């Protein structure tokens, strides 16, 4: 009889420890989400008519906040054994996709390039390879990139409203490249596939913006001028 009690006592100890780990993870994730929302607030202001002027300063501010993200993620790593990443994956999956999107957005705004998985990992202070430690799962990276696509279709619209007629063309080019990339992938019927199906709407939306500019001769007009700027 004794032994059963003992055995279950041991098990309870294990379960408690597990619950403590999850509690710890949840707390870090919560502050991480808070920081992510702050970065979003900073970056979302580029949609304001006035916001187009000082994109660089917004990017700088976001970059600073990514320091905090790195700290939180550094903290997160310490909360559980490295090889149990997938045991707790669901806890941080959402927020990791979120900050990946934010990193991709910053990188795009800075240089209009597609952030690589390596770059995201660098910005977040985590690994690319699963073997090396807390890493960025490939599905999470792709999910973050798809969020960027839909944000850029909104940016194309708002940049026209703000009087910038060349940006949509560049966005269109960027998004088409991204679309070609995704077409190389054989996605299963999972959440990622569903999100990818949304990409074609972003592509179409941006094409229509470019069309509106083209038919009014607005695309060409500015193009000459702005090409010099870049």
């Amino acid at each position: 009889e004794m032994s059963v009690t003992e055995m279950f006592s041991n098990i309870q100890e294990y379960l408690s420890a597990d619950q403590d780990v999850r509690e710890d993870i949840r707390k870090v994730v919560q502050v991480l989400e808070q920081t992510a929302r702050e970065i979003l607030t900073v970056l979302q202001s580029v949609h304001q008519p006035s916001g187009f002027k000082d994109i660089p300063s917004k990017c700088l501010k976001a970059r600073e906040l990514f320091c905090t993200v790195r700290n939180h993620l550094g903290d997160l790593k310490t909360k559980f054994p490295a090889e149990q990443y997938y045991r707790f994956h669901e806890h941080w999956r959402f927020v990791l996709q979120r900050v990946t999107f934010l990193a991709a957005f910053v990188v795009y705004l800075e240089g209009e390039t597609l952030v690589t998985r390596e770059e995201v990992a660098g910005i977040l202070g985590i690994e690319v390879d699963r073997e090396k430690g807390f890493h960025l799962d490939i599905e999470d990276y792709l999910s973050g990139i798809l969020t960027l696509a839909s944000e850029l279709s909104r940016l194309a619209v708002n940049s026209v409203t703000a009087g910038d007629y060349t940006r949509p063309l560049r966005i269109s080019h960027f998004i088409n490249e991204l679309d070609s990339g995704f077409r190389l992938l054989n996605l299963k019927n999972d959440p990622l596939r569903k999100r990818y199906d949304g990409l074609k709407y972003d592509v179409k939306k941006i094409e229509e913006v470019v069309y509106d500019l083209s038919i009014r001769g607005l695309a060409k007009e500015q193009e000459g001028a702005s090409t010099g700027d870049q």
Partner: protein
Amino acid sequence: KMEDQDDGTNTTSAVMAAFKSFQLELDTKHDKYERLVKLSRDITIESKRTIFLLHRVTSVPGVAEVLAESEVKLDGVRLKIKQIAEELRGQDLHQYHRAFTPGIQEYVEAISFQHFIKERALISLEEINKKLIFVKDNTKEAEGDQGTSSESIQESREGAVYFQVTPTDYLLGIADLTGELMRMCINSVGNGDIDTPFQLSQFLRQIYDGFSYIGNTGPYEVSKKLYTLKQSLGKVEDACYTLRVRGSEIPTHMLADVFTTRAALIDPDEGIS
């Protein structure tokens, strides 16, 4: 057949007495809940009608008249909220919250819509609650024809009755407001009003940023509405985009004509800021 039951019930009047009091307590509670549900339904309907009325401002010349009429309607709604407040006097508001939350959210939507039309600003929770402090007024009370509910109102205590909208109900009402603002925006474009869409897009973006900032820390119902909110903002941004794009063509064509035939159209550049 049930003799032993019999004396059982007789000898144990203590237990039965207790349960009789429980019966009374439970029935009283359920009846109150039911009255609150009915009040909530009334509030919902009247608030919705107020919103329909307020949308007429974009098509009708007399804005002031519409606003006045909406004020009368909302006064009626507030009388119903007063009845809720009276039902809740001395109660824990949260115990009956589920009964009246739909109505209150709809009222928040209506009053905040009216406020935006008047002030082009977001009404605060405090401002809403300030209007829900009711002075004891017997004449008004007698006017109300809800005979059933007035039976249980205890008017004995002195002073004002008041109702407090919870921050969550406020948030949910504001989330729905954004849908009405989107409608108002598209209506404005259809009526040749160019200022309003740009004002609305600014305002909606602020609300959207606010909701993003709250994110998923709010209650689940709020998160659920984020998607619709984003869609509404998208529609408004698209409308502004179209105004801008089509406005771009004016200078290249016969500009003079535009001003003579359609005086309503002003230079969209003004509208942007």
